[in-house]
């Protein structure tokens, strides 16, 4: 923090013009979200009849929330539970695997390490969605489609997280500390759990947060892996509700799609706001290596 204040000998003055220009961009960022929030307070009727940025005649937010959770036998709650399951197991597992592997690559000069790098980098360049069809067919042969495993297993791998922990561990974990622990007779796993993990924490929180976001927001993978709504996460479920609006015998439930969207966003926004301090320092350290 102090670097920002002390780094320029001139200590530039705040610029109102620059702030105003950025405020315009801020509007672009916030207006759609404001529209979404305002729309979530309207009844379906008001939604269709009143102007987008104005509140409707009745404040229906709480009715909408209640209806979102009870519509279609409370399937939305089930989707929320599924999403939480995928996030806890998938993103949690991804964080653990990426942390251990990133640390291993940073601090152990074992043979074959370069080969591991090469394979990882090559794999990152391959579009994830290009793998979707073969992964689906493989999982289908293994009998894993239409089960939570089809979502969880692919979520366990985060090459970006590995990269982040690797760069972070290189900086944050001094070799001398590891040597000292070894001389004290500690095993490698114990060193990792008692010494390393604490030093890596900001990096780990960052990786966890990004893994949570990508699992929470995952759409393509569940879309292809699941054909029954009972295992849908929120994203696929919402889109299914939205798609109900068109086609034969359509019964639009726009107000539920919009309210459901708000409910889907809120937990992540809160997580990012609360964990700001961690993920921002984690990313900064990660970029030291570039």
């Amino acid at each position: 923090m102090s670097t920002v204040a002390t780094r320029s000998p001139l200590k530039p003055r705040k610029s109102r013009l620059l702030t105003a220009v950025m405020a315009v961009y801020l509007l672009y960022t916030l207006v759609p979200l404001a529209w979404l929030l305002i729309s979530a307070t309207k009844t379906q009727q008001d939604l269709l009849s009143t102007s987008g940025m104005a509140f409707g005649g009745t404040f229906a937010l709480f009715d909408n929330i209640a209806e979102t959770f009870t519509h279609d036998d409370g399937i939305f709650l089930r989707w929320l539970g599924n999403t939480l399951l995928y996030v806890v197991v998938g993103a949690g597992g991804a964080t653990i695997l990426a942390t251990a592997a990133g640390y291993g690559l940073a601090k152990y000069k074992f043979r074959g390490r370069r080969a591991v790098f090469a394979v990882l980098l090559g794999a990152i360049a391959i579009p994830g969605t290009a793998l979707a069809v073969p992964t689906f067919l493989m999982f289908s042969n293994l009998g894993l489609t239409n089960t939570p495993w089809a979502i969880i297993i692919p979520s366990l791998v985060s090459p970006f997280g590995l990269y982040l922990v690797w760069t972070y561990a290189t900086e944050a974990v001094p070799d001398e500390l590891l040597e000292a622990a070894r001389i004290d007779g500690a095993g490698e796993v114990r060193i990792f759990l008692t010494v390393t993990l604490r030093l890596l924490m900001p990096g780990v929180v960052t990786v966890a947060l990004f893994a949570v976001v990508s699992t929470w927001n995952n759409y393509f993978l569940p879309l292809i892996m699941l054909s029954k709504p009972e295992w849908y996460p929120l994203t696929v479920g919402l889109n299914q509700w939205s798609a109900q609006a068109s086609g034969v015998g359509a019964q639009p439930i726009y107000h539920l799609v919009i309210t459901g969207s708000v409910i889907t966003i809120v937990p992540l926004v809160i997580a990012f706001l609360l964990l700001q301090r961690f993920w921002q320092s984690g990313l900064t350290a990660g970029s030291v290596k570039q």
Partner: protein
Amino acid sequence: MTSISAPVEAPPARPARTPRNVGRLRVDRKGWLFVGPFLAVFALVFLAPIVYAVWLSLFREQVFFGGTEFVGLDNYAAVLGDAKFWESFFRVLLFLVVQVPVMLGLALVAALAIDSARLHAAGFFRIVVFLPYAVPAVVAALMWGFIYGDTFGLAADLNELLGRKAVEPLSGDWILLSIGNIVTWEFVGYNMLILYSALKVIPNDLYEAAAIDGAGTFRTILSVKLPAIRGAVMIATIFSIIGSFQLFNEPNILRSLAPNAINTFYTPNMYAYNLSFGGQQYNYSATVAIVMGVITAIIAYVVQLRGSRKGA
């Protein structure tokens, strides 16, 4: 915990094997303990599907008898001569050439502004600009899709205000631009954060030296900041290129709102998806995916080469 396999692959070229060196090797080998689990899952969900996709691409479904027959590289020849594939490919290429520079330009300006120490409430700007990244692509696409719509969206309000159909974001002429806007809205903040993180670690003495040389704000940006974050710019560029070629979520979701403007082969990924799940043409679909993967990897590699040469 003495490792029994220690002597087997001792490197012959090493200098005298002092006890210390041997200990070092033994410790280092335990790195596999940490890397192993990741690699095992990685092999299952990254490497195996690639191998399987290549295998699939060499066969073709038999229409009447069921089963598949080996056709060598026929599928590849078919993809390369497939007008639908090229139409979708050039569409995402156009998207890439326009959207990526706009998005990264905005991200760079935002990162420089937030880093400049001249901005009021810089911390607030940083978090709000980043905020859309926390919004799922599905929600972003639905939200913008509704806003674009002429039943209850802001586009409808605007048209009503102007008294004519001035904007039709969901029509065929506008739709690519509309998708570009959604993707830009989603990812400027993420890219801003990558660039901002790189700006923050520029050593102070560089700024001091620039100030002593009498460099102004823009001179400092050009001569100190931009060269220092070249690596981050390159990473952001490569991620964006890969993302553009993979374009799927936004057009796929908008399709239910604009079925006439977006067809089943709107992007290569949508084409591959619809071949598989609409037409059961798994082998051909795998081939499309591989061809796109190879093209993406080549372009990402070339960008990386050019990027690193410029600085050398």
